[in-house]
C-alpha cells in the first residue's frame, strides 16, 4: 500500500477535549472532500474520544499510529 500524503495537518498536542475535536471539525470543513488531514493527538482522553467523534461525523480514519513522545498521529480522509 502506498503511503498517503496529508494535504494539511493540525498539531493538537496540549489541546483539551472537546476543543481538539472542534478544531479538527473546523479544519475539515475548509478542506475538499477526499482530501487528507493529519492530526497529532495526546494520549488519554484525546486519542480515546477524537477518533470516535470524527468517525461519527462520517469521515474515514485511514491510519492511527503512535508518534514520538507518547502522542498519536491520525490520518483522516474527508467525506
Amino acid at each position, binding site marked *: 500500500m502506498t503511503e498517503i500524503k496529508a494535504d494539511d495537518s493540525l498539531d493538537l498536542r496540549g489541546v483539551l477535549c472537546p476543543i481538539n475535536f472542534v478544531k479538527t471539525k473546523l479544519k475539515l470543513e475548509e478542506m475538499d472532500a477526499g482530501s487528507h488531514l493529519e492530526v497529532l493527538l495526546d*494520549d*488519554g482522553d484525546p*486519542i*480515546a*474520544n477524537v*477518533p*470516535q467523534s470524527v*468517525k*461519527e461525523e462520517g469521515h474515514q*480514519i485511514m*491510519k*492511527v*499510529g*503512535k508518534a514520538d513522545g507518547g502522542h*498519536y498521529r*491520525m490520518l483522516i480522509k474527508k467525506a
Partner: protein
Amino acid sequence: MTLPKTIDLAAMKTGGFIKQKEKDFFALRLRTPVGKIDADHLEVISKVSRKYGDGNLHLTVRQGIEIQGIPFEQLQNARDDLEAAGVRIGACGPRFRVVTACPGADICPNGLVDSAGLGLAADERFYGQPEGLELPHKFKVTFAGCLACCPKPQENDVGFHGLVEPELFADDCNGCGVCEVTCKEGAIVMEDDDLPIKDDAKCIDCGDCIKSCPTDAWKVKRVGLAAYAGGRWGRHPELGQKIGEFISPDDAMEVIADVLRFYKEEGKRGERLGVTIGRVGLDELKRRVGK
C-alpha cells in the same frame, strides 16, 4: 369552600399532595416519568403555579416537579386544570414510584440502550397498577443507558444499566492500538502481531472499544441490561446487588414484576426491598426472578 375538620393526610399522599410546614398549604407532585416533559405541559404547570400556588416549582431529585404553596381549598382546582391539559399527578407513599432514566441511546452519544423508552414502558406498566400498589414501602426503579450509570441504578430498589459485549473481527483491524488506549479497565493489550487481545475477566462490557475503533473491527456481539436489586439511600444507605446480566428489554419488565411479587410476598410493612433481601437472602430472590 370551607375546610373539612380533619384532613386525611395518608389518603392525600396517594393523590400527590404533600403537606407543607405552613398550615393548610400543600405541594402538588406531578408524574413526569424519566424527567421528560412536554414544553406545552410546562406552560400549563407554570400557569397553575401562578394561579393557585406561590409561583415556585421544586425540581425533585427523581426528575419530578412539585408545585409549591397551594392552599388546601385550591388543590382540586389546580388538579383539575392540570389534568384537563394532560399533565398527570404523581404520588408518594408505599407504592411503585415514578420511574427515572437518563436520555439514553437516542440522545446521548454514550447510550447503549433506550433507557428513556424503557423507563416510560415500565412506568406505563407498573405505576398506579395493581402490581405496583400496596407494597411494604416505596419502590424506586431507574434505567441507565450505559455503565456511567448517571441515574444511579445501584441506589434504586431495582435499577438497570446498558451493556454491550464486544467481539473482534481481526480482518478489519489495522493494529492502530486506539482500543488499548481507550479501555479504562486495562482489558485490551496489543500483542506482538499488532492485534488486540481482550481479557474477559477485566472487560466490563462498556463498549468503549467498539465506539473508538477507527475501522469498526470491534463489533457488537450482544446488547442487554444489567439488573440490580435492593439499593436505597436514606439513613442506612445500601447499594443494590446484581441479579442479572444481558437481560433483554422485554425481560427487564418481567424482572421488575418478579421482584415486586417477591417484595409483596416477603416484605414486612415499612421495610425497603434491600432489608427484605438481607433477611430472606439474595439467592432466594434470584431463584424467583426470571422463572
